[in-house]
Structure formats: C-alpha cells, structure tokens
C-alpha cells in the first residue's frame, strides 16, 4: 500500500516536472521573442504564444486533478539543512537560478500558502460572496451568462439587416447642405457676400456712370471697359495719379484725367 502510493507520488511528480519544464521553455521563447523581435511581432503570433501557455497550464491542472495523482496537500517539505554557501550541484540543476539554498529562498520557494495580500483579497471576496446570499448570486450568474452568450452570438453571426437599419438611421441626419457649399465656394472664389462696398450679389459688368469720386478737370470723361489701346494703358499706368477707386466697384474703370484728355483731344489717334 505504502509502496503503491510512493510509486504514484513519484510518477506524478515526474510528469509534473516535465509539464512545468514545457511551460518554462514556452515562456523562455516568448520572452526572447518579445525582447528581441518586437518590431516584427504581430498580434496574432502573440496570441498564439498566450494560447500555448494557456494550453500547457490546462494540462497541468488536468494532471493535478487526475484521480491517480495523490493529494499533494498531505506532503510536507521540510528543509533539513540550510547553508549560506554556494552549492554547485544545486546551481547546475536550477540553471544558476538558485545558487544557494539559504534562509532567503525558503519563504519564496517552499511557500504553501498564498501571499498575504492575495490571502487578504480572497478573504474579502469570500466575505462579499457570503453576504449577498445564494439567490442573488444565482441571478447574477445567470445575467452574466446571458450577456456573454448575446455578445458571442453578435460577434459570430454578422447580420446584414443590422447594417441596413443603422444606415437608414444615418440617412435621416444629413451632415451637409449643398446650398452652404455653394455659398462658401462663392465666397472663397470671388468674394460673394464678403465685400461690403458692393451691393449683395454679383454686379453686372459694363455699367457706365459709376464712381462718384472724380477730381475736377477740364475734360472729364469716363472711359469704360472696351476702349483704349495698349498704348493708353501704358501711359496711364505709371505716370498719372491713380484714383483711389472704391474697392469692389467692379469693373467700371475710371481713367485718369490725362488719359481722358488725350482721348478726347486727339480724335485721330489710333
């Protein structure tokens, strides 16, 4: 009887050791990948690594729950000899992670109870659970299950009618107005609605008789657009004082005195 249990214990510990070694290798390669290849890492491959670790932890759990496994709770590990000296064999065995079997490592490596903070949190949780009562707890469990299943269903079955409803809602609220577009484009392109001097709206070209500001002169003539040769323009430009025309009184061109005079006094000019 004793022997069988011993054999079982030994076998269980062996398989546990091998499983844990697998987890350790997976973690090692994952950490290496994260540290050295993080530029090339994609989210799916990170998820794969996590899935691998999760699978390995699952097998460990199954192993521990296995009926052939004796209960490890009944086993106690008591350190027989603690020394602050470096132990080469231990160091080799643990890949230099535990070089010394001393008082410092005992609380970490031989721990059987959870950490004090974790214990505190667990106690709080169990108090909370006891407080709300079994019916309330059951109802909460059911609500959670329903929410999860709804979410899973929505994620797994993309429905086309769902898209149609949402697009119909969106169409009811137009986000732009073509009239506004035209108004803005008109304002940017030629100042529609911006100049205060001209009457609102575009002014038709070719209106003679505009421009009240004219200093006195002997032969006052307003030459509208369409007259005058290039030569006249050149003469009128640099030489004559320009009338400070109203900004925006388009397009009646108010010629200067000199130009008007020459226009009227030399009818044979070409």
């Amino acid at each position, binding site marked *: 009887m004793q022997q069988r249990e011993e054999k079982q214990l030994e076998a269980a510990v062996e398989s546990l050791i091998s499983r844990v070694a697998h987890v350790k290798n997976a973690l090692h390669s994952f950490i290496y990948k994260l540290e050295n290849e993080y530029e090339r890492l994609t989210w799916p491959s990170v998820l794969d690594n996590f899935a691998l670790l999760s699978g390995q932890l699952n097998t460990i759990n199954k192993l521990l729950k296995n009926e052939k496994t004796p209960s490890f709770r009944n086993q106690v590990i008591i350190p027989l000899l603690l020394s602050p000296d470096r132990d080469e064999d231990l160091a080799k065995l643990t890949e230099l992670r535990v070089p010394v079997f001393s008082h410092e490592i005992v609380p970490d490596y031989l721990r059987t109870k959870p950490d004090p903070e974790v214990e505190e949190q667990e106690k709080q949780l169990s108090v909370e659970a006891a407080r709300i009562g079994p019916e309330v707890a059951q109802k909460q469990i059911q609500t959670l299950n329903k929410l999860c299943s709804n979410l899973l269903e929505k994620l797994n079955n993309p429905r086309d009618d769902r898209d149609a409803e949402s697009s119909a809602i*969106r*169409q009811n609220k*137009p*986000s*732009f*107005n*073509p009239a*506004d*577009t*035209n*108004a*803005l*484009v*008109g*304002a*940017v*392109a*030629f*100042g*529609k*609605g*911006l*100049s*205060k001097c001209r009457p609102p709206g*575009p002014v038709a070209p070719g209106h003679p008789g505009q421009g009240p500001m004219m200093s006195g002169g002997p032969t006052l003539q307003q*030459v509208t*657009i*369409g*007259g*005058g040769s*290039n030569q*006249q*323009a050149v003469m009128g*430009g640099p030489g004559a004082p*320009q009338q400070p*025309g109203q*900004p*925006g009184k*388009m*397009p009646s*061109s108010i010629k200067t005195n000199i130009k008007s005079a020459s226009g009227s006094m030399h009818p044979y000019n070409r």
Partner: protein
Amino acid sequence: MEAPQVTVMPVTGGTINMMEYLLQGSVFDQALESLLHRLRGLCDNMEPETFTDHELVYLLKGQQGNPFILRARRSLSHPTSPWHLRYLGQPEVGDKSRHALVRNCVDVAASHSLPEFLNEMGFRMDHEFVANGHIFRKGAMKIVVSKLSRILVPGNTENTERLSLSFLVELSVLAPAGQDTMSEDMRSFAEQLKPLVHLEKIDPSKQRH
C-alpha cells in the same frame, strides 16, 4: 489688357507650371467632429494642425477682360511667418470626365510689406476674410477643413462674423502640368468621406449668376 501668360512672368526659382486639382464640399458644425475623426484615421499620422489665416484678394483692373486677381494670405496664429501670394488661373475646361477642378497655380512667399507693394503696383483690395480650421495631409493630397468669417471692419481681424453654419472642406493637390494621375486618387479619397461630405468639382464661374 489680358493677363499675361504665366510662363512669361518673371518667376524666380523655377518655372515649372504647377496645376492645382481641387474638390470642394461642406459639412455642418455638428458633423465636424465625426469628419475630423475620420480624417485623422484616413490621413497621414501627424499632429493635428490648426491654422488661422487672413486672406486678402487683390484685383488689378484692366481696360478689358477680366481683372487680374492675386490672393495674399498671412497667418494670424504665426504672425512672423512670411505672407503667401498666390495666383489661380481660370479652371481648365477640357476633359469633362476629369473628376477635379484643374487650374493653373503660382505660389510665392512674400515679406510683410506685401499689401503696400500691391497697392503701389495698382492692385486694389477687393475683399478679405478670415479662415480658421484644420489641415490634414495624405501623401500629396492636402485636406483643409475651415470656417470662413467675414471681416466687419476692414483691417480688423478680431471683429469677425461667421459666413455660414458650415465648414468648407477642400481637397487639393499641387502637381506639375500634364500629370493627370492625381484625379483618380482624389476621387477614391472623396468616396471614403461619403456620406459625411460630398466632395465635388464646383465650377466657380457657375456660381456667379
């Protein structure tokens, strides 16, 4: 006096004839946030850039034909930056199937004495406005979402009044003349902004009347 050909003008520093491809649309104030989110996702990853600009449009009236228009723009948020002077030609009427408005474009930087210089040259300021908003880039494409404000007292950029309750959205590309590949990219980008904004080719001359 017809406006002289752009290639004949003494443009220093390169005489490449640049064309501007333009698509315009507008979006309500309420939809602005969603548009900005979408643009932040679609466009190049950069710090969201806002701008406040004051644009003055100068006209040189000839005896005949259309007046010559120059646009002077300065930044109100960076007052020490140089002024920006731009000439935009008439939209090219060519290919009806071309998806964007194409027009000749000349851009130069200028010093802060630009308004006085233009006045001395004979230009008169026709209108001015203040534009502020956001600017995004995607490759060669530039997307500007701006709200335009009318200046109530000439020269006073503090006292402004909004022109409309919408923001103007413009998608533009500057490319050398002859390169027509951009309009396809612009059209596919514009598709991605529907139905929030409809970016389309709006001919300004059709808006006049």
